[in-house]
């Protein structure tokens, strides 16, 4: 008989080891899945994990890694703060889209000016767009007690439609004779978010992600607000006793994660994506949820998790192109990572006992 026994104190060793174990289990299960699809599992795993970092074309892939990791880390850093408090913003994808639209719209209003103030203005508006979109579930939760999970998630689909209408309608490039999509922001100097150091993939979004991670780390470990956030997540009653106002926490956590998601959207639309288009939404907002948990809701862990997830993105594309592995299999592979992480997580709070013992 196998039983689980609660540990008196959560195990630090397992807390650190469980992401690694989860990655190992994902590789095994993923390998089986690829084998079942008729692909060589070793080859597939090598294509996904090895080639982007160390392979022949790594010089190209490595730049892609930062480009993919930056929005994931930026969004996940914000989400993790809310998750620590037990406030579940599932709609970062929507805030990402609205941030991109708001920032792009603010910039395009001044086209074709070449003012240096345009890009900063777009950054502010992108952040504001994400913030306000996240305020909808926040205010509804605080005033009416609605569930932020449902409201924020449903607002993703509203944002999707907003994106479509912007791409084919009010933000459409007037010079593109019928093609959907806005003007190319990456090619307009005033709004471009270019590579800061050529060949590295490093753009302003990477800088923002680094700042966000440092900010989140300081907030959670040194600031009273971070302490209250952790308290509210672990022991809500003790948090109220300590003087935490739950409503303020909801507004702060949703607002901050929305703001960061909006920023991620803005940097994406002005850089790698280049324009508001119908297929601008690429699922970063959802994948960031996996990144947040894979990184133990810890800002520094999120950096590692974001890079790892970027590897599976880049390597997954690589595998899809070279080995013909379907995209859905890559998505399932990424999902397995979260699945195994949550399963292995049990070990940090519980001890596995094999055999028959007495109940304590």
């Amino acid at each position: 008989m196998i039983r689980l026994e609660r540990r008196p104190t959560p195990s630090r060793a397992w807390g650190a080891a469980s992401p690694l174990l989860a990655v190992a289990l994902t590789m095994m299960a993923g390998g089986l899945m690829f084998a079942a699809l008729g692909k060589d599992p070793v080859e597939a795993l090598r294509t996904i994990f090895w080639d982007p970092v160390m392979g022949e074309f790594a010089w190209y892939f490595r730049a892609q890694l930062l480009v993919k990791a930056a929005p994931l880390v930026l969004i996940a850093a914000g989400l993790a703060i809310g998750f620590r408090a037990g406030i579940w913003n599932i709609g970062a994808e929507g805030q990402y889209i609205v941030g991109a639209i708001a920032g792009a719209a603010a910039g395009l209003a001044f086209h074709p000016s070449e003012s240096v103030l345009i890009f900063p203005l777009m950054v502010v508006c992108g952040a504001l767009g994400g913030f306000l979109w996240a305020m909808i579930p926040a205010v509804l939760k605080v005033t009416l007690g609605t569930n932020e999970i449902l409201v924020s998630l449903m607002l993703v689909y509203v944002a999707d439609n907003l994106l479509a209408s912007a791409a084919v309608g009010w933000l459409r490039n007037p010079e593109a004779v019928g093609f959907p999509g806005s003007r190319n922001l990456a090619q307009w100097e005033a709004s471009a978010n270019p590579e800061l150091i050529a060949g590295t993939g490093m753009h302003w979004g990477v800088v923002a992600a680094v700042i966000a991670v440092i900010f989140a780390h300081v907030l959670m470990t040194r600031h009273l607000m971070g302490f209250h956030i952790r308290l509210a997540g672990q022991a809500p009653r003790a948090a109220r006793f300590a003087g935490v106002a739950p409503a303020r926490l909801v507004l702060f956590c949703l607002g901050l994660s929305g703001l960061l998601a909006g920023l991620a959207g803005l940097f994406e639309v002005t850089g790698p994506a280049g324009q508001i288009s119908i297929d601008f939404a690429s699922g970063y907002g959802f994948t960031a949820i996996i990144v947040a948990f894979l990184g133990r809701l810890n800002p520094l862990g999120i950096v590692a998790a974001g890079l790892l997830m970027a590897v599976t993105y880049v390597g997954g594309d690589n595998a899809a192109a070279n080995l013909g592995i379907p995209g859905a299999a890559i998505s399932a592979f990424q999902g397995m990572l979260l699945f195994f992480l949550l399963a292995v997580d049990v070990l940090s709070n519980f001890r596995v006992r094999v055999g028959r013992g007495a109940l304590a």
Partner: protein
Amino acid sequence: MTALLELEGLTKAYPGVVANDDVSFAIARGGVHALLGENGAGKSTLVKTIYGLVKPDRGRMRLDGYPFAPTEPREARAAGVAMVFQHFSLFDALSVAENVALGMETPPPIRDLARRIRAVSEEYGLPLDPARRVGDLSAGERQRVEIVRCLLQEPRLLIMDEPTSVLTPQEVGILFATLRQLSAQGTSILYISHKLEEIRALCDAATILRGGRVVGGCDPRETSAAELAERMVGAKLSAPKAGGGAPGDTLLRVEALSLPPLSQFGMPLREVSFELRAGEVLGIGGVAGNGQDELLAALSGERLATPGSVVFEGADVSRLGPVARRRAGLLTGPEERLGHAAAPDMTLTENAALTGAARKGMLRRGFLDWGRARDFADEVIARFDVRTPGAGVAARSLSGGNLQKFVIGREVLQEPRVLVVNQPTWGVDAAAAGAIRQALLDLAAGGAGVIVVSQDLDELLEISDRFAALNAGRLGTPVPTAELTMERVGLMLGGAHDMEATHA
């Protein structure tokens, strides 16, 4: 009398601690046997062994002369062992009969069961209506549900774990009469309690445990309470002493405080009014669920009251939250240690910052100084003799008594002007309880006002200057403790429920 249950050399070790070490004694047929000991002495492990919840590492038991080694409670029950736990396992939303049925393996139809419940409750003088919803019952009545549930199995050994901690004196009287009747009919009772006077009144044999070992047995009827206590603790105990200063200015005035209940089964506060003066300990007694949690929440600032109802040092604080009240000097210590007074998975350092951040200078422009938090935690640990490997361990790894010393110490060392505590010594052993009470008295002697909300009447009479009873959300007029007798206190608490049905 012959022995019903014999224990021989029972030993049970957990990692790092030997809970029971070579424990041997015998319980006589029809005897009322007391099991005495401080928290952590091994009483719980021992009764869990008898009830089949814990498997001993060594040793054996004999019931009626036959080997008895239950591997689960069902076997113990089948052999005639029943147990009433300290914490009731009842569903508020179900009726008494439905609750009893849930605990049975093959429950009879509810109507038959209700008839049997009524018969047993009448036979043993435990008035109980099988159709009532448990959520509406008092703690004493809930306990009766548990006892009746046990009696329906016609047990030969009834184990009672701290049964009187939630009862009014009158309810204690009813319970004791029932237990004596059971004993006279040949049922053995194993009775666990901290309250030595009760044991002397009820029990005819006692086994004293200390550090997992039997340190002796005695006839409690012929041993003084002081001697019992000393053998339990292994050292002389001194009763807390009050400072005896004259009460000073009014620190806290509560006027016509009314609040809706916290939950469906909570109790509203109805027009609660009182004054607390400097240097005074005000004791508020009452059976659990009469508005204690609501009163604490209204004083701590977790719930806001109508303007003007809570006035602290001349300023209206009724609309201020916990942080502002703490800054002003009004501190509170809730009843529930884990999850309310302390966050279970956080370290003691973090828990020290939980209420101490503002008053102990841990905040600088919103940033927490963890060094100071750690110093404060260390100070609490040292001054209140909290047994822990250090301030870095999680709160939930501390024993109940040690954590209680920590959370009370955390408030006391912040030098409050007024400290309100709920059940400050609940589930705490005699030595720790004495230390906590002494700290509260010292605080009052230093000019602070202290409110102690408790269900332990002995405690309230020992340390409070004035006493008031909370009953159904109403607070009676505080009366100087010196003028009180136990009987009077019982009547103030609203009396036992269904007094007329006792063993007159």
